[in-house]
């Protein structure tokens, strides 16, 4: 199959130490010839097929993609096959498909770091022209050597939700400091119910939902040279303040939060077990679905800091990548069509959770026309305000540093901050000691 050989030529030579390259080229050539002789659908035959790896397994999202695929096929005759995997498995699935020589043409990734690895290995095709067609919000594009390989569809900001009715009952006000937050949560912990639920396990849930306070308090983990800052004279006290604050919050949290995942907090809040919950737009969607009476009673605020001066949200992102395969030209055309015609439809599959990173969408009447977006206009304005306000701090562990790099991604995967939190909360270790251990772990991967 000549196509496959040419794609190998675009890969840096050092990457072809793959044991199977020679064997595979020969057998694939033979198999390919045989298949073509049998008239099996091949790359040049009647139906062209694009393979799309989707990592949004929600019913509506899968449906949105299927609808788009069907429409595209009708218009152009090119078939788009969508495979869906849980978001955690997308990266290993992409790797497996690449290393076996049967790569997907379009993939979904939730970590910019993964995109970086693939881009640096020459496996991706830039979408710079597509990106440059639109205006984007801050901290969502991650160019590699000036090219854009990542087309984001989602800002996953994490902020805090709270029960307005319970606040009213107890005469509480939206907290602007750690102290106030701890007090509020304490006041709402009674009768088998708890003030707040923050995941504490060594997983991405914790690092998305439980550390926003740190960013608000001005923590920077890395300097512009990717040197670790957390244990220096400026940053260490902030880490300590945060850990002590989490310790204070602990009695207001339900037991078992080290096992808690994303869905756990959703279930706890919608079941009325906790009065505050960190999340993104999905919480509101879930409430509308399962506990509609709570939806009207739910308010929101950003993570406060220790002094009452700043606020923050934690950052994540999702996006598509275009892979360097024989079908890349067709796949590019599909992406061009899809991002123009079906972007909003796709976003509507989780209308409040998929916060548009593309600024034109907010003005687009088609996007605004969704019932949930209309109903929760206040929330949508809040979410938009995060982008436009100068005062809001938007950070995440894996995007620390001056540009996209693998090192913060490695820091993320050590889950050292979860360990620090657990050390402080479960082992009652002094905060300073916990920070030292955390710093050591981070240094080991930097």
């Amino acid at each position: 199959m000549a196509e496959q050989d040419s794609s190998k030529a675009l890969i840096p030579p050092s990457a072809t130490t793959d044991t199977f390259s020679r064997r595979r080229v020969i057998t694939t050539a033979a198999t390919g010839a045989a298949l073509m002789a049998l008239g099996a659908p091949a790359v040049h035959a009647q139906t062209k097929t694009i393979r799309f790896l989707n990592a949004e397994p929600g019913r509506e999202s899968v449906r949105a993609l299927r609808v788009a695929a069907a429409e595209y096929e009708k218009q152009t005759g090119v078939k788009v096959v969508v495979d869906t995997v849980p978001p955690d498995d997308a990266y290993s699935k992409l790797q497996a498909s690449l290393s076996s020589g049967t790569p997907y043409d379009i993939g979904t990734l939730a970590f910019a770091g993964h995109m970086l690895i693939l881009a640096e290995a020459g496996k991706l095709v830039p979408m710079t022209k597509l990106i440059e067609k639109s205006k984007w919000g801050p901290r969502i594009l991650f160019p590699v050597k000036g090219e854009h390989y990542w087309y984001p569809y989602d800002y996953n900001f994490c902020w805090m939700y709270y029960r307005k009715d319970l606040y009213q009952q107890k005469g509480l006000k939206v907290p602007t400091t750690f102290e106030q937050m701890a007090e509020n949560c304490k006041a709402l912990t009674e009768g088998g119910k708890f003030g707040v639920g923050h995941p504490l396990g060594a997983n991405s849930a914790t690092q998305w939902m439980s550390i926003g306070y740190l960013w608000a308090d001005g923590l920077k983990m890395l300097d512009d040279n990717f040197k670790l800052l957390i244990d220096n004279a400026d940053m260490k006290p902030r880490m300590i303040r945060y850990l002590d604050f989490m310790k204070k919050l602990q009695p207001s949290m339900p037991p078992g939060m080290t096992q808690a995942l994303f869905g756990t907090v959703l279930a706890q809040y919608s079941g009325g077990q906790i009065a505050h919950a960190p999340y993104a737009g999905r919480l509101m969607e879930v409430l509308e679905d399962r506990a509609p009476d709570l939806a009207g009673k739910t308010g929101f605020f950003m993570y406060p800091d220790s002094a009452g001066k700043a606020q923050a949200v934690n950052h994540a992102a999702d996006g598509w990548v275009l892979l360097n395969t024989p079908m890349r030209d067709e796949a590019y055309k599909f992406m061009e069509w899809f991002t123009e015609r079906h972007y909003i439809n796709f976003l509507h599959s989780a209308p409040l959770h998929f916060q548009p990173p593309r600024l034109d969408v907010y003005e687009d009447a088609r996007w605004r026309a969704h019932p949930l977006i209309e109903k929760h206009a206040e929330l949508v304005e809040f979410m938009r305000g995060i982008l436009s306000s100068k005062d809001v701090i938007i950070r995440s562990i894996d995007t620390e540093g001056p540009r996209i790099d693998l090192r913060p991604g490695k820091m993320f995967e050590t889950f050292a901050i979860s360990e620090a939190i657990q050390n402080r909360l479960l082992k009652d270790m002094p905060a300073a000691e916990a920070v030292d251990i955390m710093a050591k772990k981070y240094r080991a991967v930097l």
Partner: protein
Amino acid sequence: MKRIRTFSDRALLLAFVAGVSTTLLLILVPVLDAVRLSLYQAESFISAQTWVGLANYTRILSDPTFWHAFGIGLLFAITTIAAQVVLGVLFALLLDQPFPGRPVVRGITVLPYLLPTVVVTVIFQWLLDGGLGLFTVWAEHIGLGRPAWFENPTSAMLILIVVSVWTWTPFVTVCFLAAMQTVPKSLYEAARVDGASAWMRFWHITIPMLAPMLTVTVLLRSIWMFNKFDVVWLLTKGGPLSATEHLPVLAYRRAFSQFDVGGGATVATLSFLVLTVLIAVYFHYFPLEEKEEKS
């Protein structure tokens, strides 16, 4: 031992060679590839691979997390195997006795083994859910408060062991039960006539006759439990704080999360070498081939 003489001998041998070589090919090639990976440094399976020779090994062997994981793996394997064998033999003995409804009970006893690991872990996670799980509620009722099942390293390990024993004991039960059927009943009769108690019959007839089967079963279970990945990953992900992280989990995390494919392959190869040594030792004490040719 027969020698190769007739045509049917040859046919059998041909089938043998075909079967063995295909199986070995499908097994050895991936294994060798994984071992090869341990000599390289790579951030992912598709990144450029840099030759580092044995540097990965020195790095991993001097990393305390490796030794910790090794210890956890041994602990997990030994306790689960012991429990599985004891419980499995006990169940097999019970199932060998006649009682009403025995076929149904046999079916029930084997049920845990039929379930995919993902199903088992989901069930136990539900039973042990921090707020709503049945066991959690029971624990509250008997005054243990709301136990943090998975936050405490000891309880997380215990849960892992109990779940593994629950799931895989039927393997031992079935093997043992099947093998028990091959013991001639006449032996038991003769022993009973001679006045031997049930316990003596068990210890002096059943166990020796079943020794080869028991040897094989324990060996297989040992290898499997040492290498069991999915139950640990799905239940605790090696947590809390690596308290249940054994070598397969460590290998997985290094290769797939921590952008250290070479390191992950190294851990896997080291684990493999450990097992090879342990198996050799095992065979020294429990040889598979007895000295040949009885009458």
